[in-house]
Each structure stands twice: as C-alpha cells, then as structure tokens.
C-alpha cells in the first residue's frame, strides 16, 4: 500500500457489542482474481438476464414508511419497465400491487407519494380500492365479457423493515427478513425510524446501475477522485465483511489517511465533525490521531443531553461509517446521527443509463422542529450539484461507462480493496445460476 504512516486503528472489541451491531470480521470469501467481464455492464442481453433472475425475483426497496402513515397514503415507485403501488390500508398494514389499469393499461398514478380514497384511472374512470380490487367500472353492462376475472390488479409481496417499505415482483419470494438477513440485526441499533427526511433526489446517470453500486463498494478510489477525504477518513484501514448476499465495510472517520502526512492544524473536514458533535476544535488539546476516539467519548457523554440516544451503538459507530450494501441495489452510509442511502435502479431499456436515488435522513435534537419533508427532485446528470463528493463520483461514472465499451477493455481487474465488488458479482452469479427464467 502506498502509505506514509502506519496506523493501528483502535476498534471496539467484538466481544463487547452485546445485542448491538456485530463488529466481528467475517472470513473473507475465496473469490479468486478473475476478470469481471465488461459485458455485464454494457450488453442488453445481460440486462435481460438481470431482469429475469434478479429484479423480478428479489426484494426491492420501495420507500419510507413515514411517507405513508395514514390509510390511503401510497408510494408509487418504478423498477425497470414495471411500476408498483404500495398502499397503507385501513388496518395499518401495507399492500402492494402493479400500477396499471386492467382496462387499457394506463398507469394509475405517476411516480411519487400521495394520498387517495381510491385509485381511479384518469382515462375511463375505472376505479380500484386501496387493496387493488376493482370497485367500479363505468358502463359495466357494455362489457359482454364482464369484469376482468380476478376482479383485482395483481397483488405483490410487500413488507416493512427498518422504517422502510419493501416489495417484490416475485409472488414466491422468501420472507422479507430471510432475504435481508443479517442486515436487520446489524442495523436495528441505529433506529432509522427516529431520523427525518432531509434530501430526496433522483439523478439520471449515464452509466450502468452496477457501475454506481461498485463506486460505493470500495474505498480504493478515495485517493483517486476524492483527495479531500484523505483528511477526513482512513481509506486504508477498513474492515470488509461479506455475508451471504449482502456486505459491508467499516471506515474510520475523523481520521487522517495514512496516505498523507499529519498536518500541523486540524483539517477543516474533521473540524466539521467535531463541531457537529458539539466540540470546539479550538479547545482541542489532544493529538491529531486521537481525535476519533475523543469525538466518540464526547458524543457518548453529551449525546443524551441533546436527546440523542446512542445507547445501542458501539463507540466506533459514533464516528465511523458502517457502510452496508443490501443486494442488489441499496447502499447505506450509516452514522449515529444520519443515514445517507443510495438506491440504484436500472434504466428500463438502456444498459448505459440508470437512476440514482439519494435519500438522506437525520436525527434531530430533542425539541428540534422537524424539517418539512423535502420535495423529490429529479434531474439529469450534471444539471445540478449533489454535493462535492458525490459530484466527483458523478463526474467520473459516465466516462467509466463509455470506457467499458472500448475494444481494448475486457473487464474489471479487481484488487483486494475491491473485494465487495467481487462479492457482489458472485451474488449476481448465484442468482443467474438459479436458472429460473421468467
């Protein structure tokens, strides 16, 4: 490794985490050193395989539970060529069904959140209940064949976990918690339900959805395209854990990368972390290399005074990024005070395009006025800034996608720091191998 200093990161003892997030290092899977063929990112054929074996088979993140608190509240979300309605029922349960009118195929609602008494198609006013059952067809007697036989729109499996709603296009999908395992146990201590929406953005990116997933599954690129983060986090000393289909890495924050020399003044990004925790960097007397642990101790001591309950989190979780990836397309940067979630969705037809959803949630101080839920913004790559770090990623990815089409490029040449990418492709392979073509 090209480092200037050798650092031993102090981590919590996994034996002490109790019922909290497990901190053990998972054994690294033996995944070899082979090339990941580029066609996975560029070909329409592979895109079809993905649809048949993955998108139409697995559980998918639909939205946030607190967006649909009342009966009739719904989330309409698209995946590929499909569109789904997830609706809060009168008994507080949720139901999901395809967002389509059985009459002429019109979509019942546009993407987004809303609230209805019933779903009425704009075209001929066919009307469906909150459960997707047909309630009214104007001039029903003029249809000699009668009402469509099922009397309802095809229902879909759905469920709630972690303050989020999930759905699947696969009627035979396994139970949600089985699919998510072991993530629920890992992330329950964060209590995402206590956090409030602060950003809700979708950007159409000119790259394959997996190029985006990959970009967040390794820290090797920090020294390449995010040089400023070298004075913010330790991109070298991280712990990678691969599970059956999901994975994570633990990145120490409030640390200076061993790739750079220790400066004589506290880097401004780390000062920001200290201020956010309630510390005054000017008062800090300790060593630059002790800031991470000192921020942890400060938050532990002072969090409760602000009404922030960190009791189920270990010390490292107070500063570090416990960075999870839920297969196939959810990236979670989890922190004690906030969650930065990315949902990566394929374009319906073009392997060179994708939808990148940024959802950010923050914990509030006790008595702090909750911010108004931000309006969803949708724009194309490069039209607006999404913050310096993500802009750096966004700037890079279209060139990666274009480059992958080069005749001189065969596939991804991955190193050990990119183990999560290799693991992700292994899980993709596992799904493809199931041979369950729709």
């Amino acid at each position: 490794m090209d480092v200037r200093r050798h650092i031993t990161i102090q981590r919590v003892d996994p034996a002490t985490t109790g019922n909290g997030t497990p901190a053990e290092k998972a054994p690294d899977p033996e995944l070899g050193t082979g090339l990941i063929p580029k066609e996975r990112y560029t070909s329409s054929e592979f895109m079809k395989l993905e649809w048949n074996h993955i998108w139409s088979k697995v559980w998918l993140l639909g939205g946030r539970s607190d967006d649909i608190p009342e009966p009739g509240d719904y989330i309409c979300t698209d995946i590929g060529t499909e569109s789904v309605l997830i609706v809060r029922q009168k008994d507080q349960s949720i139901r999901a069904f395809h967002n389509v009118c059985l009459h002429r195929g019109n979509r019942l609602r546009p993407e987004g959140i809303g609230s209805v008494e019933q779903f009425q198609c704009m075209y001929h006013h066919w009307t469906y209940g909150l459960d997707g059952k047909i309630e009214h067809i104007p001039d029903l007697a003029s249809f000699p064949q009668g009402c469509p036989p099922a009397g309802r729109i095809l229902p879909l499996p759905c469920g709630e976990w972690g303050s989020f709603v999930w759905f699947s296009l696969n009627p035979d999908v396994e139970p949600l918690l089985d699919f998510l395992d072991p993530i629920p146990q890992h992330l329950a201590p964060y209590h995402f339900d206590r956090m409030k929406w602060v950003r809700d953005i979708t950007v159409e990116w000119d790259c394959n959805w997996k190029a985006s997933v990959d970009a967040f599954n390794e820290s090797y690129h920090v020294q390449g395209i995010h040089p400023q983060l070298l004075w913010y986090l330790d991109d070298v000393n991280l712990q990678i854990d691969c599970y059956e289909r999901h994975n994570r890495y633990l990145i120490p924050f409030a640390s200076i990368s061993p790739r750079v020399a220790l400066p004589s003044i506290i880097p401004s990004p780390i000062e920001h972390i200290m201020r956010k925790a309630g510390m005054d960097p000017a008062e800090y007397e300790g060593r630059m290399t002790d800031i991470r642990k000192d921020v942890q101790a400060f938050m532990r001591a002072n969090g409760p005074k602000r009404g922030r309950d960190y009791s189920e989190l270990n010390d490292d979780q107070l500063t570090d990024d416990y960075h999870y990836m839920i297969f196939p397309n959810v990236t979670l940067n989890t922190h004690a005070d906030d969650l930065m979630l990315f949902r990566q969705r394929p374009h319906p037809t073009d392997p060179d395009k994708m939808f990148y959803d940024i959802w950010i949630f923050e914990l509030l101080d006790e008595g702090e006025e909750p911010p108004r839920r931000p309006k969803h913004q949708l724009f194309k790559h490069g039209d607006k800034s999404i913050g310096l770090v993500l802009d750096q990623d966004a700037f890079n990815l279209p060139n990666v996608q274009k480059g992958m089409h080069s005749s001189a490029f065969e596939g991804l040449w991955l190193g050990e720091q990119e183990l999560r990418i290799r693991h992700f492709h292994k899980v993709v392979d596992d799904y493809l191998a199931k041979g369950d073509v729709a």
Partner: protein
Amino acid sequence: MDLGLAGKKAIIVGGARGIGFATAEVLAREGCDVAITARGEDSVKDAVAALKRYDTKVVGGAVNVRKEGEYKDWLAKAVDELDGCDILVPITSAGGGAGSEKYWHNAFEVDVLGPVRAVEAVMPGMVERQSGSIVLIATTSAGEAMGGPQAYNAMKASLVTWGKQLALAHGKDGIRVNTVSPGPIEFDGGNWEMIKATMEKFYTATLRQQPMGRFGRPDEIARAIAFLASPAASWCNGSHLVVDGGFTNRTHF
C-alpha cells in the same frame, strides 16, 4: 560569499517540518550545531536523524510550547547541550482559525509567548557574549488582510512590532533581531497540500495571485532566514523582510 555560520549554535523552535526544518537544514549544512523541537516525538526523531548527515551536533526533543514549564526546561537544556546559543529562530505557530475565542488564547500562547519565552531563555547568554542573532517569523497575512478576521494574523503582526523593539533595545549588546514574513509555502505533507485537497477554491484563488505562478518552497524562506541569522547580515537589524515571490501588493517606500 561566506555567511560565517560555521561553528555557530542555533535553536529552532518548530523545526521538524516545513520552513523550520528547512532552516535547521540550511544552518546545519553551513556548519551550525542545531537544537530543534516540535510537538510530535516521532517527527522530531525523524528530523534529528535527517539533520545529522551534515556532521554537526544535532539535538532535539518533543515539547508542547503551550506548557510553560516543559518548554522553558527544554530551552534551558538546549542552551546547555549546545553550550550556548548564537542563533534563535522561533517559528512555531498554532495556525489559523475563527469562530471561537479560544483561537486567540492558542495564538497568543504559541505564536507570541513561544518566541517571547525562547528569547528570554537565550538573551542572557547573548548579552554576556555581546553577540547573537534572532530571527522572528511573522507572515504576509500580518501586513495584508488575508483569510478573514482572526487571531493568527493579528498575533503574528505583534511579532513585527516586538522584533523592532528588541532590535533597538539590544543593539548595544551586539544582538541583532530581524523578522521574516513568508508568503504561502507549499511542501510535501504541508498544510497547503491539505488546503489544496480540502479547500480547492481557496487554494487556486491564492495560487492565482502568485506573480510567479506557484507557491514558495520552505528552502526559499530558509535561505533568507539563514542570511539574516548569519554574520554576513551584520548591518541588518530591526528589519522586516517579506519573502513571498512578490505575492503581497504593498509597495515599501
């Protein structure tokens, strides 16, 4: 030109990196025995090891300048180990910062009291020998309003004033006191390297103002310091030398 530095004994406070280390290096290369100090034990060790290649006496120790007792003890020990002190360059700084009153205390304790205590430690010996040279290090940020209102600039500015006072008071003792104000200096592992990555706009805006299209290097300041510190600068006293590649605007008539 012979600077006449061979055999002189120099103390550099804040000598493990950047301008301080470069100064220690120029002085050692010219034949001075040097004592250096900085906060980090490892960095002092590395710097001492690097300076030893010039075959003069090199001593060093880690000290927190803000801890009065520890600092004064080290200064006394350094004078003792070098068997006197001919040259003093106190360069240590708490750096910039705004938004907390604490920054004023930090800058006062490190940027002002650091040099004050060092001067007090070496002055009696210099007076006794009727010879000595002190170079204080201010900044171009003292003469021009840069970086927004903050303690760093104002506290560094006080050194220019105090340096003149010292020069006038101790001319009779054969002691010369001069001040050097460096412009922005970039080096591997330095703070401007960090600023380049973490505050890119500020970095490029500052770079654009450099007439020579680049920042200064530590050795370019060190050579100016070494000259003022040396007997070759025997008629320089109470001067304030801006070494900034032409960065600052003010014309000194």
